[in-house]
């Protein structure tokens, strides 16, 4: 298997997923299926799946405290320690985790190997490389903003933070552009950022030879899925408009457990909704679980305090050891000979007793 097969397979899978609601709603008008049943099933899978997975992780203990230390440990008052990268206690761990989860601190360290072995001799460099970090950050944050913006469809009345987010994200009025379309309504920065970031994340999988080699269909598939999700969203907003009042009616119906399928919502909406449903249903079974897993990572969420706070292994069991007595028994004679202290002196030989017998 190689990257071509991986991409073809994932591309084919996502194309099929687009076709299903297209035909289903477009040709057979299965709006209840695609507007109610599938979303509910997907949400159930998503929530139950995540809970089951996380609890399953939780069932395995953390027998040893194994943080990766990335800075000076706490030792003497006159040596400056690094309380975040080498946390001494919970406070430092919390800061470390916040930085890790919100800003991808570890990824920020990334460098790129530059290996040249030309006539000038061997040259090995570790170059500046923040693109992955930047794209990852752009992708995750814009995804979050887009998700939260969608709360205007999920909540009634709309909470004020959604309005705020919406106006910040949409402050670009591109109506001055020579063509119509993108201008109204205003363009969301997060839409552009996310599509750009996902596209970059896809192209780097193709472009960087090592990453191309390690990529599986399980890497391309969610990328394509998210790309399709974003593109259908953008299409729906700027080009193939649908009656969004009706969309909200459908969404609110789902959240209030009184589902309705209003008339007059274009197929594009059902495609968008179906891709989302597939994405969240796929979530618990995939690498996307890193979203929850990062919080549980023992190399990040533990303090480096093993030498001063005891850590107990819940499944600890006694092991066989080679005791000092066994050791001395083997080497006693030589130890005495060379003047090493011993616990037991060599017992006098049994010979005299035998003599008595005779």
């Amino acid at each position: 298997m190689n990257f071509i097969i991986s991409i073809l397979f994932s591309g084919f899978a996502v194309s099929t997923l687009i076709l299903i609601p297209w035909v289903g709603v477009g040709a057979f008008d299965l709006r209840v299926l695609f507007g109610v049943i599938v979303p509910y099933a997907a949400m159930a899978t998503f929530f139950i799946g995540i809970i089951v997975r996380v609890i399953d992780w939780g069932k395995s203990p953390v027998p040893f405290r194994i943080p990766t230390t990335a800075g000076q440990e706490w030792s003497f008052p006159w040596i400056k320690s690094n309380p975040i990268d080498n946390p001494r206690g919970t406070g430092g761990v919390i800061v470390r985790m916040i930085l890790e989860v919100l800003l991808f601190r570890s990824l920020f360290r990334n460098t790129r190997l530059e290996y040249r072995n030309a006539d000038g001799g061997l040259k090995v460099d570790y170059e500046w490389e923040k693109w992955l970090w930047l794209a990852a950050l752009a992708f995750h944050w814009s995804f979050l903003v887009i998700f939260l913006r969608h709360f205007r469809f999920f909540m009634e009345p709309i909470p004020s933070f959604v309005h705020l987010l919406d106006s910040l994200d949409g402050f670009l009025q591109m109506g001055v552009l020579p063509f119509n379309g993108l201008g109204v309504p205003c363009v969301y920065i997060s839409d552009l950022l996310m599509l750009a970031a996902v596209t970059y994340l896809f192209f780097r999988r193709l472009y960087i030879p090592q990453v191309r080699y390690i990529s599986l269909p399980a890497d391309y598939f969610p990328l394509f899925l998210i790309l399709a999700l974003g593109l259908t969203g953008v299409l729906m907003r700027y080009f193939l408009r649908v009656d969004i009042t009706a969309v909200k009616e459908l969404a609110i119906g789902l959240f209030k457990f009184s589902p309705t399928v209003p008339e007059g919502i274009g197929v594009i909406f059902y495609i968008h909704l179906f891709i989302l449903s597939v994405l969240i249903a796929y979530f618990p079974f995939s690498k996307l679980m890193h979203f929850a897993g990062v919080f549980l990572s023992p190399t990040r969420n533990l303090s480096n305090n093993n030498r001063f706070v005891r850590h107990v292994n819940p499944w600890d069991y006694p092991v066989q050891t080679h005791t000092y007595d066994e050791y001395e028994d083997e080497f006693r004679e030589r130890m005495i000979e060379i003047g090493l202290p011993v616990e037991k002196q060599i017992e006098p030989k049994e010979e005299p007793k035998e003599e008595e017998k005779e």
Partner: protein
Amino acid sequence: MYDGGKIIIGLIIGVGLLLSPFIYDAGKAAKPPAPELTEKAKEAKECVAETSYMKSSHMHLLDEWRHTVVRDGERYYKAKNGKVYYKSLQTTCLDCHSNKSKFCDQCHDYIGIDPYCWTCHIEPKENK
């Protein structure tokens, strides 16, 4: 489970945030808006385009009108049915739909849209 307390609190927070729309919407009326037509609009029977198009894309039409009027000086719009309309928000659209709060704002508020029409145009005075 190990570290069960922390994990479950984390799950409750995480899943709770994701489930917040369910919690938030529970028990709220959240009736979808029903735009009201004025008598005049009802009499006219048809708009400049069919209703479904107007529902999803009126902003697009208005934007196009704005561009063509302001940039190109084209003041007339020929509808599909052959009728010609004067391109004007205030004198054409609002002539029929004079009830902004019941016709425009209801839906806009419902889906959280704050159109910038009224940063230039004068909001119509409604007869309450």
